[in-house]
């Protein structure tokens, strides 16, 4: 039962910590608008970074928004790392290799899960396992190369070195160990995806026959510890990015009734800043402080 507990427990802890961090970010108060062009949902204007404010008396005209453009933009950003390509071409090949490794390993795991689910129903697909197997090994190799490349780059580059802390290297080494043990397991196994799929199936069905041998045991163990560790770090930037893009850079919604209610609530909060142009004898709230004229 050790493995069942370990696998399920790690996933649950991962989800809980991740959810906690997402809720923490999402529950922060509404902020003032801080958008930044280009905003992809601007249907006819995003190509050059234009916005609805380019329209004469914009408040009288309907907005033309495009969800497809947003999805396309994010897909290119996530899969091909658009910003790094555009602004940091020298880092792009390494960063892409590294991220591609991660994406492929995740994809291989997803395929293994699908196969496990199918096999619970009694069916099996060699083809699916072969595809997952190829994807997994490609992922381990690319991820490993990416880790080595990024570590070397951080050590050798004068711009990166001062900003690379112990944590930066620790995270890279940790991921490197996950990729390396994955590669070692692949070398040893006949079909790693088949083994994975079996383990997933045995976990899902609480099958006591579960038996994981070295080095796959080390790989899975490390991966699960990494899974618990991940949401405690800034490596969950894939989540943060949702907020920095959608809730800040692209949040260009003008004030509406719903927003007004939220803001009026926030404006009732006390202001505790100590500078003489803000501080008054009796503590004021934001609404009072920012309306009438305060003597400085």
């Amino acid at each position: 039962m050790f493995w069942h507990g370990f696998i399920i427990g790690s996933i649950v802890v991962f989800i809980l910590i991740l959810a906690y961090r997402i809720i923490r970010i999402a529950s922060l108060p509404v902020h003032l608008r801080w958008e930044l062009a280009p905003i992809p949902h601007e249907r006819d204007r995003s190509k050059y970074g234009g916005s609805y404010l380019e329209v004469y008396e914009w408040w009288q005209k309907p907005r033309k928004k495009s969800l497809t453009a947003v999805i396309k933009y994010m897909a290119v950003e996530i899969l091909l790392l658009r910003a790094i390509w555009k602004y940091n071409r020298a880092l792009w090949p390494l960063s892409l290799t590294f991220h591609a490794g991660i994406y492929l390993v995740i994809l291989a795991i997803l395929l293994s899960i699908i196969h496990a689910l199918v096999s619970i129903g009694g069916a099996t697909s060699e083809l699916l396992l072969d595809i997952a197997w190829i994807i997994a090994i490609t992922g381990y190799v690319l991820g490993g190369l990416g880790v080595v490349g990024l570590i070397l780059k951080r050590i050798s580059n004068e711009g990166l070195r001062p900003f690379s802390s112990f944590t930066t290297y620790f995270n890279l080494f940790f991921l490197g160990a996950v990729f390396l043990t994955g590669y070692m397991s692949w070398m040893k196994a006949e079909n790693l995806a088949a083994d994975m799929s079996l383990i997933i199936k045995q976990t899902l069905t609480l099958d006591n026959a579960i038996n994981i041998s070295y080095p796959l045991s080390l790989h899975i163990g490390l991966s699960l510890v990494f899974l618990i560790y991940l949401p405690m770090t800034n490596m969950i930037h894939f989540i943060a990015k949702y907020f920095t893009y959608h809730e800040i850079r692209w949040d260009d919604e003008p004030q509406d009734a719903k927003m007004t209610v939220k803001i009026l609530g926030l404006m009732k909060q006390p202001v505790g800043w100590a500078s003489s142009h803000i501080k008054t004898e009796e503590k004021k709230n934001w609404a009072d402080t920012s309306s009438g004229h305060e003597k400085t």
Partner: protein
Amino acid sequence: MKKLKLTDIAANENTPLTELNIDELIPLPPPYDRAGDLPGFRQLTEDQRQRLVCNLDGVVSYAGLPKPENEAEKKKYIEQFLGGLKKLLDKENNWTFLQPLILSLDYCAQCQTCNDACPVYLASGRNDLYRPTYRSEIFRRLIDKYGKTGGKLRARLTGKDIRLNWATITRLYELSYRCNLCRRCAQACPMGVDNALITRELRKLFSQELGWAPKELHEKGTVLQLEVGSPTGLNPRVAIDNLEFLDEEFSEATGIDVKTVWDKQGADVLLIHSAGDIISFPESPISFTILCNAAGINWTLSSEIGGYDGVNYGLFYDDVQLARVAIRHAEIARKLGVKKIVMGECGHQHKAFITVADRVLTGDLNIPRESVMTFLENLVFSGKIEFDPSKNDFPVTLHDPCNVVRNLGIVEPQRRILRYLCPQFREMTPSGVDNYCCGGGGGLSVMSDVNFTDWKVNVSGRMKFKQVLEAFADVPGPEVNKYVCAPCLNCKLQFRDIFEHYGAKERSGIICGGLAELIVNAMVDIKTPFIKWFDD
């Protein structure tokens, strides 16, 4: 150039971290390519070095920074800094920007992709001090250490320990004014981290908690605006007098009746200029008067305190002042009963009033606010005024004010006007939302304490000046008059300083002005050229 470590920020409190050397800055195109031919960099005198806090880069932007007599006084300021740091992380005191701040602090991947997007860093010849990440990472580490549970232990264990002392806080203060808040770095960041926002939060901490802010932005900026009417010092009476005088002068010069409208109750449009234009670029407000009257627009200016100056320096350093100025503007419009408010040619007014303050303008203060670019575009293409573009047949390039273009996405209306009215219009490279800041963004253009102007014209404005020269590379000599259209008062002030410093008018024939002047210059009804190339 000396390489800097993050921990250097806390070392040797009386010694500058770096000294600027003109030879190390990126080269400019001819005839400005020989450092020896250019005016030098004003070094601080021995007396200034003794009197002032000068421990960053040999430049002082604020002579009013206190110089503590003893350790106890230093400790008091450090305690205040820590108090402010905690307030920045607090839902009550910093609800305005808490979410963007926390995201920008917690999710930087340290990839340094943003560095090469920064015009200041590039122009400096890649001086470590001016990396967008240098000040942000130090601030981030201080927040992690002092603002979070277990921070001190974690800082030690992870090797991210930054000492907090007098040197750290004074250098951070100065360094927060070595950034244009242009957000070019934010645009480049794959994570959506915003170093400009972090810089502004740092400025806020100093202003809102310690009372440290450049005098041009605070004491003679927002405070003066709210008390007297404008950071220029113009009170309502003097503002009206000045414009009446200008009306007369331009009526005579143009041969048409120029009459500025004041305080017209129920007008369709309340136009809010930057009052600095009345003093430094009077042809700008007059152009608007001419255009609005010619197009038959029902418009007005306001003579209420604050109502004739659209600037809002709070955007650069202080949320409370930002809200006070924006609310003041909206209240004035409400009282006049206007249908909409039109921004003058002022970039940060656009950003402060149209978007950033949008959420504090609740209820009947939420009066529609429009950009001057769309307003002018509508006016030019309305068919109500006749134009002759051949009157503008000289090389024109367009500067994109960051606060209008990168921040608000208003890119094309001004270009459509220029393509129509200026036969020799050409773009700079890069332009539009990828533009470089003029170097005066973030309030820097109005700051001129001690030797700060030297820094602005040599470092922060360098990329822009280079771009301007490159845009006119086909006609480099002074025999061809060239016009940089900068539809923003602060940008124009910065261009004026740059052009004066390098003698760009005499050596290259380049002047700078707004958009409305170009439109008026092309009007068939204006018989003598409206744009003056030489001071006569």
